[in-house]
């Protein structure tokens, strides 16, 4: 079969390549030189993306649990069982919910939303990662009036200054890291803010250390420094009027270090300057304020919506932005329409044939705890949720778990009905990149066995639960999404990118940002040490990595060497404790304690203990489901 142009399924950079196949299986990747995002440059995951569909443990026929074992059944039987068990659970007055996914297409996420808020009449539809991203969008919305950043990855290459709130973009978003490396070569000054050193901090002109989970202390100070330094955007400030004075007053208590003042000065003076926020481990309120600070900084210095000055919030995984945008989010209808929006309600009723449920939904953790029936679209909550073990327990308690996936994941053991769907390599549809552009995913091969495209399976479920619904292809679902969205966002869905179209910056339609007082920055209480997840979600558990012989090796080796997990300590901390590589240390927090082998990480600040996300369950007694916690470390 001829090579087929598609979009990379891993991170949200939106790179493009051709999938090449032989004997009905994906066999290779050919980079697309003309692609507006990747220009022929791919990361290791992109280069290896053909492997998992061909090598993976694929689900090839519908399965149903009977006497504790999953047994093959016909599609008819499986779909009927799925619909009947969900309806029965709901009729019994129990909570049901639907989980969309960053691993699913926009079409699949949208149909998951329609299934929940329409056919199943439940407000609980969300993705496992919504909570890592939506608060940042809400923070931008507080200032800019829209749930989106602006600009593109390509803009970064021409920036004079880049402020990067760092997790580890070289690992999570390599195309962004590449643009930063090239920008730096061209003379750009890179400022990193983060608790843990990374490849990007080693390249930084200025690296500002922060306390894990409290990066906001730095962003708050950056706004104060920018306002103190002058060089502000007069039009924005005049328009803000008294609100600007309120903003200034709210910053009175900020502690501005010399490094922060220098970074703010560089940013304010540059003609083209960027802000990039990598996935962070922090609570929702903190994330929202951090994004609000950064949007305020961009607006006050005139960089907001300026050509060549991007403000990029990086979703943790492939289609997380798309999942949130089509409505897999507790507080919104598709297109971030507020639940209270009557116009959106009647628009959706017109499209769906039933009025949407407009109550606030539960977040993923709450939903798993409360629900007794759930539909999971292409996700393994036990691998992705912060409290993986709790997710496992919650799924075990459920009456029905309808799982749609292309791959056998640990979630399979908890499913009552399994509906095999196409992987990205066999699927048509779209995904939304971190820049907001909607990009095509195209099938390069046929799904294995009896597997069907996810959108077709969800459409079949809709048909059984509500008014007759029929789509003649993923394209038709996308056109429906455009109709379901508020008109300004829907336009973006009508004209899907062809590869050569250069993404446009999202504009505010002439609206001025609303500057106002920022929430005070709470003092950081001193703690002996702070334990934090590594901020890089566990790629090793993602089936596209786990089933790729090339990509799985690093995580497989880590799990082999440390089956019970490990923690990373600085050299200083290890010397102080008198422990060597692999020796056990005991971590104690207010929640409890745990023992794990210590591994030295040279670039770590003393007082920071890194807990690999993959081993968060082993450290759960200490972390208690939180990404950051104060701990005391001692030799075990």
């Amino acid at each position, binding site marked *: 079969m001829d090579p087929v142009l598609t979009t990379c399924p891993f991170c949200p950079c939106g790179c493009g390549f051709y999938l090449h196949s032989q004997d009905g299986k994906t066999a290779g990747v050919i980079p697309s030189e003309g692609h507006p995002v990747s220009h022929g440059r791919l990361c290791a995951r992109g*280069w290896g993306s*053909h492997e998992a569909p061909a090598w993976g443990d694929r689900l090839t026929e519908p399965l149903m649990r009977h006497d504790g074992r999953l047994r093959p059944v016909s599609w008819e039987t499986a779909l009927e069982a799925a619909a009947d068990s969900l309806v029965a659970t709901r009729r019994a007055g129990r909570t049901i919910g639907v989980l969309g996914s960053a691993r699913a297409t926009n079409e699949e996420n949208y149909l998951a939303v329609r299934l929940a808020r329409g056919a199943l009449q439940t407000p609980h539809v969300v993705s496992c990662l919504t909570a890592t991203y939506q608060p940042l969008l809400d923070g931008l919305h507080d200032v800019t009036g829209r749930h989106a950043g602006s600009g593109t990855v390509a803009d970064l290459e021409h920036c004079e200054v880049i402020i990067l709130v760092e997790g580890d973009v070289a690992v999570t978003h390599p195309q962004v890291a590449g643009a930063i490396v090239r920008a730096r070569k061209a003379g750009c000054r890179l400022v990193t803010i983060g608790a843990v050193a990374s490849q990007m901090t080693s390249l930084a002109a200025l690296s500002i250390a922060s306390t894990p989970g409290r990066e906001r202390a730095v962003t708050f100070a950056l706004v104060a420094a920018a306002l103190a330094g002058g060089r502000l955007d007069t039009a924005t400030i005049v328009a803000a009027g008294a609100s600007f004075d309120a903003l200034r007053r709210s910053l009175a208590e900020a502690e501005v270090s010399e490094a922060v003042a220098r970074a703010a000065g560089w940013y304010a003076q540059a003609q083209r300057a960027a802000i990039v926020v990598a996935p962070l481990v922090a609570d929702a309120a903190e994330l929202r304020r951090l994004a609000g600070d950064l949007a305020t900084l961009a607006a006050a210095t005139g960089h907001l919506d300026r050509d060549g000055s991007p403000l990029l919030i990086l979703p943790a995984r492939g289609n997380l932005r798309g999942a949130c945008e089509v409505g897999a989010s507790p507080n919104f209808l598709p297109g971030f329409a507020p639940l209270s929006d009557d116009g959106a309600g009647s628009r959706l009723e017109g499209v769906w044939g039933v009025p949407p449920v407009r109550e606030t939904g539960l977040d993923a953790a709450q939903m798993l705890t409360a629900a007794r029936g759930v539909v999971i679209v292409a996700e393994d909550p036990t691998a992705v949720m912060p409290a993986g073990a709790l997710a496992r327990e919650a799924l075990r308690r459920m009456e029905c778990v309808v799982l749609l996936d292309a791959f056998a994941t640990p979630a399979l053991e908890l499913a009552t009905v399994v509906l095999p769907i196409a992987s990205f390599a066999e699927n048509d549809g779209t995904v939304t990149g971190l820049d907001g552009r909607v990009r095509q995913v195209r099938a390069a091969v046929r799904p294995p066995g009896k597997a069907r495209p996810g959108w077709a399976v969800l459409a079949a479920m809709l048909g059984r639960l509500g008014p007759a619904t029929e789509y003649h292809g993923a394209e038709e679902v996308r056109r429906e999404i455009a109709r379901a969205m508020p008109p300004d966002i829907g336009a973006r869905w009508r004209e899907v990118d062809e590869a050569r179209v250069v993404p446009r910056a999202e504009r505010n339609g002439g609206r001025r940002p609303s500057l106002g007082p920022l929430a005070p920055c709470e003092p950081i209480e001193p703690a002996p040490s702070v334990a934090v997840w590594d901020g890089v979600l566990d790629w090793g558990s993602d089936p596209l990595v786990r089933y790729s012989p090339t990509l799985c090796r690093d995580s497989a080796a880590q799990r082999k060497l440390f089956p019970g997990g490990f923690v990373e300590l600085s050299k200083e901390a290890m010397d102080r404790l008198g422990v060597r590589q692999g020796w056990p240390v005991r971590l104690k927090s207010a929640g409890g304690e745990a023992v794990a082998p210590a591994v030295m990480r040279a670039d770590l600040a003393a007082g920071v203990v890194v807990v690999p996300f993959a081993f968060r369950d082993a450290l759960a007694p200490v972390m208690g489901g939180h990404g950051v916690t104060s701990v005391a470390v001692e030799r075990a």
Partner: protein
Amino acid sequence: MQVSSARTIGKERTGEWIGRLIENAEVVAPTAAQAGDVIFRKISSPVEVQWGSDNPLFPPKQVVLPQTDPLVTISRGADGLVVEPVYDERPRVLFGVHSCDVKGIDFLTRMHAYDLADTAYLRRAAALTSVSVACITPCPLGFCICCDAGPFLAESFDVQLTDLGDRFLAEVGSEKGGRLVEPSADLFRTAEAGEVARRHELEEAAKRAFGPETCHFASAMRRVSVGRVSAELWDEIAGTCLECGACNFVCPTCYCFSVKDQGRDGHWVRCRTWDSCQFRAFTREASGHNPREAHRERVKRRFFHKVSAQYFRRDGAVGCVGCGRCVKVCLGTSDMPAVVAAIRKGAWHG
């Protein structure tokens, strides 16, 4: 190798020639793809050939060394496991390829014949005949002239075409090449002295047209071979490498591989897959120990293999054909010309 006397073929007749080649072999040529890219793939009609295109970003190396390369099938038989080698000996013609890629395949074939001969590779390569087009205009990032891999070839080619405007001059460089031209002798005529002279003028002009993108291998080789590159410099270079492996994947001379069985339940296909010496796990030993744990060690290893005197003596060439693809695909900034310049100058400007 005896170079037979040159001939010419009118451009209006190349379609017919390619048509005849398609009847007897799988013809792989540069073709237009969806996003405006040019990629090598099997053609079913002469009109699919993209003449005069820039060198495709993805090399034709996959024709001899596929990304996923089935080597043996393993199945459960009555008397235990049955292992059968998989040989791909389909006659293939690689048409419209550039000089550097011909040299790349020549290099790969030498490597796979060296020491323990790789039969699967060699049988596939033996069935391949190339028809290359000499480069009258060097590509913007190419530096084949520094690697003895272009813009024109004096050896290693099967058939080499030179664009003379309304016709091609065709030189046959091997018996296999002769077998592509002889059966279509009616489409060719013997070249005139003026046409051969014109070909040499074009070669000289092409050599003069190279831009600044060159590689000073000799001085880099001296430094790399005797370990006169500091760990700090390798560290700096590694700091701008994002370990994507792209430089390996698009390099016409790289052949790192891994082996993995595909399939289950009584039938497996053991496949060779492309791999990268830049990946941390590539050098990890079974014990878990990694002799090249530090990123700088992996970067150093790559360039030692590419440009050291030790390997030059063994391989008879630097492990680079100057195609410039690594410059385009490098996700960071640590491509071949940049690193060779850094080694030579002892300073990194990435």
